[in-house]
């Protein structure tokens, strides 16, 4: 079973890296990029076969290590 974790900065948390990417895109001539927010994607392969149990387990991983919930939100996608 595969799990994909998307870790993104919370609204209101300044993202200097996103700002730098936005500025670089403008420099390359890509007009109209109004905002860039940079995050992380983490892919996990799990032995678990029950989607609900897998989700519960990965959400616990997010809370304990994969995301810092002071500044980050996370979203878990389970497939197959």
């Amino acid at each position: 079973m595969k799990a994909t974790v998307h870790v993104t900065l919370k609204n209101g948390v300044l993202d200097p890296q996103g700002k730098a990417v936005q500025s670089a895109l403008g420099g390359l001539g890509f007009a109209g990029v109004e905002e860039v927010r940079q995050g992380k994607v983490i892919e996990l392969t799990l032995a678990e076969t029950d989607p609900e149990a897998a989700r519960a387990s990965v959400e616990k991983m997010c809370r304990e290590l994969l995301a810092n919930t002071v500044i980050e939100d996370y979203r878990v996608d389970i497939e197959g």
Partner: protein
Amino acid sequence: MRAAVIVFPGSNCDRDVAVSLRAATGHDPIMHWHADTELPKVDLIVLPGGFSHGDYLRSGAMAAHAPVMREVKARADQGVAVLGICNGFQVLTECGLLPGVLMRNQSLRFICRDVFLRVEATDTPFTAHYAPDQVIRVPVAHHDGNYFADPATLDLLEGEGRVAFRYTDADGTASAAANPNGSRRNIAGVLSANRRVLGLMPHPERLADPLLGGTDGAPLFSALAESLAA
């Protein structure tokens, strides 16, 4: 005072802080490997600067879950003093012993230079040898030193006098120009509620001997030696 310096894979200021502790106490601290859960009885635990686990995922995130950290947290709860410098501060926020988080510097650049700090709290075992509002010069060397917490947490820290150090200019003014990394309210170091845990981004151990070009960091270690004398 008995001190232990926790050594993580990627720590690189562990021996520097050991030199400062030896100068202040007259004897060597215990150098304690992070995977060893049998932490001897000590009066001070130091989490040193460096790049534990290569700063993978987030600075300090892996080290915060090192085998010894469960014991470090238990000792902190019992009132044992814990000092986290630079990467050690990042570990303290990641493991929940201190609030907030150290984000990427606002400039996105690694910053390595001397800064001025104003001592904001002197009623702690770490800062008792400084004068209130004293301005000291110590180096910073970090990529992720941009202190962030939500406004309610920042207000709580200020209200309880838990901001230990603030980035200022040489005159002690906490201006935007004197803020090297974008930290909220120029915060360079914070204390736990019981004032026994201190995390700070600057490196007092790097200016604690005349041979290094300054001694403004030395009072932090002499204060610990006196406050925590057995």
